């Protein structure tokens, strides 16, 4: 994933209302904007805007079926995002584990030093 694509992705899911829309798409398969609008406490216009952002981030795609436009989740993208996130989190886990090791070793050394001073 490029940095630009990352930006769009994290921005897309940073909004609680948008996550609610994405939740509904994920849970229900192919759905229309008006179906979604009937299940959230905000306007149909707001739903349409959220869908545009989610589509730009690659998280949902749409197709026309007769007069309706149906949205569905892009599983690959979601999976990719989930893995990128796990990687970043794992990096911090490793760093914190290293800090813990270093600080505890330094603390043990300090205590040892004090004992010899006495």
């Amino acid at each position: 994933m490029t940095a630009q694509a990352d930006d769009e992705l994290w921005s897309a899911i940073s909004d609680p209302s948008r996550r609610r829309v994405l939740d509904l798409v994920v849970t229900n398969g192919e759905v229309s904007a008006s179906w979604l609008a009937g299940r959230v406490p905000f306007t149909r216009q707001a739903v349409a805007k959220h869908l545009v952002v989610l589509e730009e981030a690659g998280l949902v795609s749409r197709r026309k079926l007769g007069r309706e436009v149906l949205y569905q989740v892009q599983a690959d993208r979601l999976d990719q995002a989930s893995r990128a996130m796990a990687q970043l989190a794992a990096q911090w886990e490793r760093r914190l584990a290293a800090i813990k090791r270093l600080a505890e070793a330094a603390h043990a050394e300090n205590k040892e030093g004090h004992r010899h001073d006495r």
Partner: protein
Amino acid sequence: MPGLVIERDVLIEAPAEVVWRTITEPDQMAQWFADRVELVVKPGAHGYMQFGDQGGPVVVEVVDPPTRFSFRWNYPPGEEPVTGNSMLVEFTLTPEGDERTRLRVVECGHELRDWPDAEKQRYADEHRGGWGEYLDRLAGVLAER
């Protein structure tokens, strides 16, 4: 990466002062973070971190020993880091007894500092566990569908 939030913490068997030195002294940072760290731990100080053959600038934000340390990184070279073009890394140290410290790190693209406390709390509650849990849950729903 605006919108990205990572939050992790660890319990360390050492006083906050010792943990503070580990996270702020450049030669210590080089052991858990970057390969090479050039940094003066002073608010507003510009530094540099080298990772293998790549590297980037870093700017120190908050220095409040031994409880808070934060810096910005991941911003375009030549630009000043602000909200939206950089990531803020914030360490918080909380003593738990005499010789134990809870170290918490939050990395995010949002400006939380200037928000009212109630807003901050709401945001933190909402993002507990970070995006990892949210995405994992969605992936789980998708797998079962």
